[in-house]
């Protein structure tokens, strides 16, 4: 594993975290403003939007370190006609630009909350397209470990899982009290997404066993040499996004548990993040190209 792949781990995870956080935050904003004037409730979820921008800027900087010639970065754009990597790069730049616009409108309080939400959801749609482009970038016929439905499923679930937990962490950081309904919603989403990840993994490993020599080599590495990493990854995601989220759900409506909820939200995000970093490391480390 070389530094170029670390750059891709950082780029893909930061981007996915960012997209997931935007979607979670917009959902929280819509939910918080459902019964009252949204202009009053919206500011509680301003900070996550600024965090989304910061994460995307970091993601784009990380991506530069993957290139042999950083000075030629603009050259990654031209082949939109056939290259999913070109589409991924353009989508990442457009998504970042839209998040900057959204953050600016929120910061300067330009326009109505309704208008900002429209722009927010357009940005989220671009984010979903970016996740799709990112998935298809890796789904190459010569890479059987990547060329499966597990790639988009993993990218989307990772994005949403880190997104909801990241949003919860930022919300409890900025506010002593967060609507217990919001915390409960985040906890349920997290548990469902962890369930999806845990379901995907055995199906993925079983699929690899049927896909020829290169895929078998990937499988062997995943359950052999890097078996410890696979187990650790699943345990961390289960502990963070599953167990702690369940505990968060249970304690969400208890007023005296506010401090505990803060610790729980931070811990859940941290555990899931480390689990996903290990998972992405495995993604790159265990793929083998077919042929010679």
């Amino acid at each position, binding site marked *: 594993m070389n530094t170029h792949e670390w750059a891709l781990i950082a780029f893909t995870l930061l981007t996915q975290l960012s997209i997931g956080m935007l979607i979670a935050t917009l959902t929280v904003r819509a939910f918080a403003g459902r019964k009252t004037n949204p202009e009053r409730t919206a500011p509680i979820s301003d900070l996550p939007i600024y965090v989304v921008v910061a994460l995307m800027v970091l993601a784009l900087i990380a991506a530069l370190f993957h290139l042999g010639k950083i000075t030629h970065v603009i050259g990654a754009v031209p082949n939109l006609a056939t290259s999913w990597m070109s589409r991924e790069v353009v989508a990442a730049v457009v998504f970042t630009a839209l998040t900057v616009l959204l953050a600016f409108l929120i910061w300067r309080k330009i326009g109505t909350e309704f208008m900002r939400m429209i722009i927010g959801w357009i940005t989220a749609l671009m984010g979903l397209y970016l996740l799709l482009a990112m998935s298809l970038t890796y789904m190459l016929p010569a*890479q059987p470990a990547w060329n499966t439905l597990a790639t988009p499923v993993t990218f989307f679930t990772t994005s949403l899982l880190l997104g909801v937990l990241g949003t919860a962490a930022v919300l409890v950081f900025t506010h002593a009290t967060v609507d217990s309904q919001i915390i409960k919603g985040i906890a349920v989403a997290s548990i469902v997404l962890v369930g999806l990840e845990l379901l995907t993994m055995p199906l993925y490993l079983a699929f690899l066993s049927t896909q020829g020599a290169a895929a078998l080599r990937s499988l062997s590495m995943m359950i052999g040499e890097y078996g410890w990493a696979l187990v650790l990854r699943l345990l961390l995601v289960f502990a963070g996004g599953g167990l702690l989220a369940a505990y968060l759900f249970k304690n969400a409506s208890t007023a005296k548990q506010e401090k505990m909820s803060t610790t729980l939200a931070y811990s859940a995000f941290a555990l899931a993040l480390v689990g996903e970093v290990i998972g992405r490391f495995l993604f790159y480390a265990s793929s083998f190209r077919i042929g010679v």
Partner: protein
Amino acid sequence: MAKQLAFYVDIAKCTGCKACQIACKDKNDLPMGIRWRRVFQYEGGEWIQKNGQMIPSSVYAYFVSAACMHCENPVCLQVCPAGAIHQREDGIVLIDEKKCIGCRYCSWACPYGAPQFNEDLGVMTKCNMCYDLVDQGEKPACVQACPYRAMDFGPLDELQAEHGTFNNPAPLPEPSITRPSVVYGPSNTTKVTGDTSGHMMNLEEL
């Protein structure tokens, strides 16, 4: 329209001397670690013991000289985000090193391992079929260097008419992915893609 150009390699004649690989390195002044043409050694079979002696039974070994296949369906060209790879009318696939951004994506996509990263230049490089020689009516350096006359070069349809259409000796990958412009003449022990009876040898030389 110009005809698709291709390489021909007679596996039955090839002894694995790697003169083609060295001629390629010399002609293109390739640095350490970059081999546009590689010679794969594939072997397998078993020996049996009879009356205290080891007797060869199904033992086999052969060599497959391979470079960029200048494919009909060049996936490297399709995935390159920079549009740095193009295909000439005669089918030769070329990397424009001025446009390449060194992202290595083409090396993930090519099942023949043709595009290779040049650390010094920060870009991908690969076999260009010695197009400068070809444009002067000559054959590529590897073909000219083969001491056994095991290699040839010319329009794909003419090579196929003369030698057949075999293009998937083991350990090369399934040709349906890229449709390689290549013809191999098999030896009587040559296995086909997907064979599990043998394995590649001397990997450190590849």
